[in-house]
């Protein structure tokens, strides 16, 4: 697994993929938070709420762009056959790629902690910032990225075309993030199923963690979804043996 991990991480940072995706992330969110009209100085509240509300929508496109080639490319160039005939299990291939993408996401995510430090230091003397909510949001954002990665890799496993893989990844990320919430708002479900349907999507769990309450049920949800898509990816790879 670690041989795959190393190869992928080297691939990210020896090509432009790693740097460009980091730059895109900082640029869009940084401008939005600090520069553009409606920025944090206009709002006069020492809170990163707008950052945490925008980030998922950026990640929804950014992460499928990072993961789209993970398996599609291996299928297309035939190198998957090389990997699969090395003494490595299919799970190790999937997990190696998952952790490599997660590593890239981690080094993109870590510097955003500076935002918290900045705002804290800009704070009015004596005023208290809601640290719990902020930490919760950071954890929630990281886990959200992890789910998107597992979805993106799954999307990459079902096709050898990178564009298809990207689009499928975006659609699946959107479905899991927002669609359940939207569906639950349909009048048919109101008062009966709406809470259950909402809890199937990431949105409600992301918000719950963002309030600063790290509930094991929410954590369990994140890990379950990641496991689900990882197993699904592995099943697709095993499919060649049927």
């Amino acid at each position: 697994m670690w041989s795959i991990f190393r190869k992928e991480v080297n691939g990210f940072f020896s090509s432009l993929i790693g740097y460009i995706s980091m730059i895109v992330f900082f640029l869009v969110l940084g401008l939005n938070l600090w520069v553009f009209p409606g920025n944090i100085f206009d709002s006069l509240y020492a809170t990163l709420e707008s950052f945490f509300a925008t980030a998922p929508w950026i990640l929804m496109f950014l992460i499928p762009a990072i993961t789209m080639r993970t398996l599609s490319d291996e299928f297309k160039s035939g190198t998957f056959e090389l990997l699969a005939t090395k003494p490595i299990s299919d799970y190790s291939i999937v997990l190696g790629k998952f952790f490599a993408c997660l590593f890239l996401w981690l080094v993109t995510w870590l510097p955003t902690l500076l935002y918290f430090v900045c705002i804290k230091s800009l704070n009015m003397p004596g005023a208290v910032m809601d640290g719990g909510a902020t930490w919760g949001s950071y954890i929630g954002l990281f886990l959200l990225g992890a789910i998107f990665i597992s979805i993106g890799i799954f999307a990459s496993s079902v096709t050898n075309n990178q564009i298809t893989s990207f689009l499928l990844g975006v659609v699946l990320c959107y479905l899991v993030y927002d669609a359940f919430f939207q569906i639950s708002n349909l009048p048919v479900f109101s008062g009966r199923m709406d809470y259950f349907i909402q809890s199937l999507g990431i949105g409600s769990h992301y918000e719950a963690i963002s309030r600063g309450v790290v509930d094991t049920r929410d954590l369990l949800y994140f890990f379950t979804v990641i496991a689900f898509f990882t197993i699904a990816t592995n099943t697709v790879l095993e499919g060649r043996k049927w």
Partner: protein
Amino acid sequence: MSVVVNGLSKVYGVQRAVDNISFSVENGQILGFLGPNGAGKSTTMKMLACFIPPTSGTALVNGFDILQKSIEVRNSIGYLPENNPLYYDMYVREYLEFAARAFGLKKNIDRKIDDLIGLIGITPEKHKKIGTLSKGYKQRIGLAQALINDPKVLILDEPTSGLDPNQLVDIRQLIRDLGKEKIIIFSTHIMQEVQAVCDRVIIINKGKLVADDSMEQLKNKTLGQAQIEIEFLHPVEIIDIQQLEGVSSVVHVSGNLYRIEGGDGIELRKKLAWFVSEKSNAVTLMKEIDRSLEDIFHNLTQR
């Protein structure tokens, strides 16, 4: 080291891509895997390399079952897939290092890679990106990654396709050298290659094994008829030649040139020599026509 294949079959839908193939290979044999395109060569090799499982039957590679002990099998073989897939944006060393780590090697990786780079003759290109190399060098990189774990069994799927004549000679020599201490199974559809490299040939057609012999045996078995072209100085009676022992047919080609077919080449040539001296005739030309593997291949796979 050994490869024992027992009743291996692969069925795709209704098509039997590989149909009940059995054979075994022991120490230090170079086995040529021959067949027309789509005969099932690659499928068989993919199964031996544990990429896809057989529909039925099984195989033991170095004593490990390809289904039950798949990881051990993969650990003890080197495999070069068809079309030699490579990561074009990786550097030569980087790629070989990855291959070494994929085999779980940890110690002396650098030294192993250096040795291998020397052995396989890629020293002048070792600092380049794989994508910028010529096809011949890419092929060598493909071989190098298959050799990094010093496998006892080497499975090469069309390792020489698309190479120029000089590169062909080099790669064949390399395969012959490696074959001294490994089992090599390699597929091709170039007949001269098999003649030049292999100790033994397996021919498959439409998924079925149609021949499994050493080169010499194969030639004798399938034809058993020597063909000699002979030109006499003076005219001869065709009847006289036909009456010679062992001659099965005589065809008059032109002038005093005849094409004679008979059981055994050496016997036939002896008889003809005596015949010529008895008749006070002389031979201006005599050659045994080498019925090449191509004919055999044609005979076996066109049925």
